[in-house]
């Protein structure tokens, strides 16, 4: 590991990454604190990022937010997954049947990232829009993928104590390993209020030809609505995930997807 101070590029990328859904607007002091960069350096980096449209400064209160130039990049980044366009019918099937929101998610390290969704006709909550990153061990989509990664890798990935978001969140590595065993056996994962109270997500894995998990499909909504039909929904979910796995087997896309599922 290098011990040299971060380069300007790395610092600038850290600045971009300190914005989140919960903190979409930050002051210069916030940014300096989060990134551990001096205010004067941060200021210069912010101005450089602003000159390229990656950062936008609000004239009224001098706070910063991410700039719209990033959006066209996001479009390009998502569209490189050409197979996503073909996932639409599977997600539509699931949402038509369940009347709940469904997603395709990928795993990046310890996070799930939602890359395609079909909205429920009911009120849509902002919990997992495209590009949203959530902790994998708290969500149905993440657990469904983690369960098909070997135990040792999981132990290396997660600390003994896990951060909790609700009183239902899995809080230790041991508990997580137990849960993953169950998921592996049953072939689907359920997160019931483990990340957000009253929200349940059910996830099933998607495999490539080498039986490696590369993505997951999830249906999610309020606990009270989903629990009544839980078994029917699980059945429908597994059916669609199998169809997608079959579909991918006939494509060469899995090669690319594997790069993204480290």
């Amino acid at each position, binding site marked *: 590991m290098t011990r040299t101070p971060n380069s*300007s*590029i790395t610092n600038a990328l850290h600045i971009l990454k300190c914005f989140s859904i919960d903190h979409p607007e930050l002051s210069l002091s916030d940014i300096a604190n989060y990134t551990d960069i001096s205010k004067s350096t941060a200021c210069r980096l912010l*101005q450089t990022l602003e000159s390229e449209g990656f950062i936008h400064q609000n004239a009224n209160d001098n706070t910063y937010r991410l700039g719209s130039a990033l959006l066209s*990049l996001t*479009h390009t*980044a998502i569209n490189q997954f050409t197979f996503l366009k073909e996932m639409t019918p599977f997600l539509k099937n699931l*949402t038509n049947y369940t009347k709940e929101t469904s997603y395709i998610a990928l795993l990046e390290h310890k996070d799930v990232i939602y890359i395609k969704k*079909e909205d429920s006709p009911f*009120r849509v909550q902002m919990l997992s829009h495209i*590009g949203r990153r959530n902790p994998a061990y708290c969500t149905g989509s993440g657990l469904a993928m983690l369960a098909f990664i070997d135990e040792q890798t999981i132990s290396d990935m997660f600390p003994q104590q896990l951060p909790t978001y609700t009183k239902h969140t899995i809080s230790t590595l041991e508990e997580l390993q137990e849960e993953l065993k169950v998921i592996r056996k049953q072939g689907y994962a359920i997160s019931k209020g483990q990340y957000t109270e009253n929200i349940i997500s059910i996830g099933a894995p998607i495999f490539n030809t080498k039986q490696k998990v590369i993505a997951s499909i999830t249906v999610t909504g309020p606990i009270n609505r989903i629990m009544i039909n839980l078994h029917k929904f699980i059945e429908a979910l597994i059916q669609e995930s199998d169809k997608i796995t079959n579909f991918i087997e006939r494509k060469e896309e899995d090669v690319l997807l594997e790069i993204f599922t480290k």
Partner: protein
Amino acid sequence: MFYLKYSLNESHFVISVKRAIQILRLYTPNRIELGIKEIANLLDLSTSTVHRYVKELEQEGFLIQNPFTKQYRLGFSVISLGGIIQSHQEIYEEANPILENLANRFHLPAHICVMENNRVIYLLRAMGDAPTKLITKRGRFNDVHCTAEGLAILAFKSNPVIEDIIYQPLREYTPYTITDPQELKTLIHQVRYDRFSITQDMFALGYISLAVPIQNYSGEVVSSLALIGDTNQIKEIQYEEVISELKNGAKEISMMLGYYED
């Protein structure tokens, strides 16, 4: 505290950061993978410099290497950042000049509208020069079935969402309000085909609304651009011109939201 922004001249920017962003910007939907040499050629930099910058971008997840081709693609960090901006409505504020132009040219208030909870909500408005009584309030809800601004969004939603709305008991605001689900369905199909909607007297007598859809980086229709006001301000012979100008405006706003026309 308000301070004058630095005069943003090149010398103040961090050149390496600018270069790194320029590397990211080389990617387009038609150019999803790039090698070091190619980047060096395109930006007129040495391969060793590009190599160093690319490694830093890779380290932070902005680029990812395809092990099969050894070339680089946009990485997860780019997807996640786009997700944060998407939930921002302030991005539309940048569209204000477009609204002002439309409102002044056609003497009707111009609006950006979104659909939330099955109603249409007015996010942004430019009044223009004509004194006109308003039937819209910024931040207030109206029904979707009787407004062009609502129909221009609804027409691009999935069938369950559309059906959820049109099979509700619908309020008859005027004798011209369409409340029959079949009739509405036909209208919605027409809007989807035309990519614009015009409603006259359907919400309030003497009022007209002309609207076109706005798309975001994922291609999804997320809002509409609409001129809404007194029917007498506009002649039928002008409709074509108005729609064409609205479409131009919507295209510009869609690009601000990261939408690319393939």
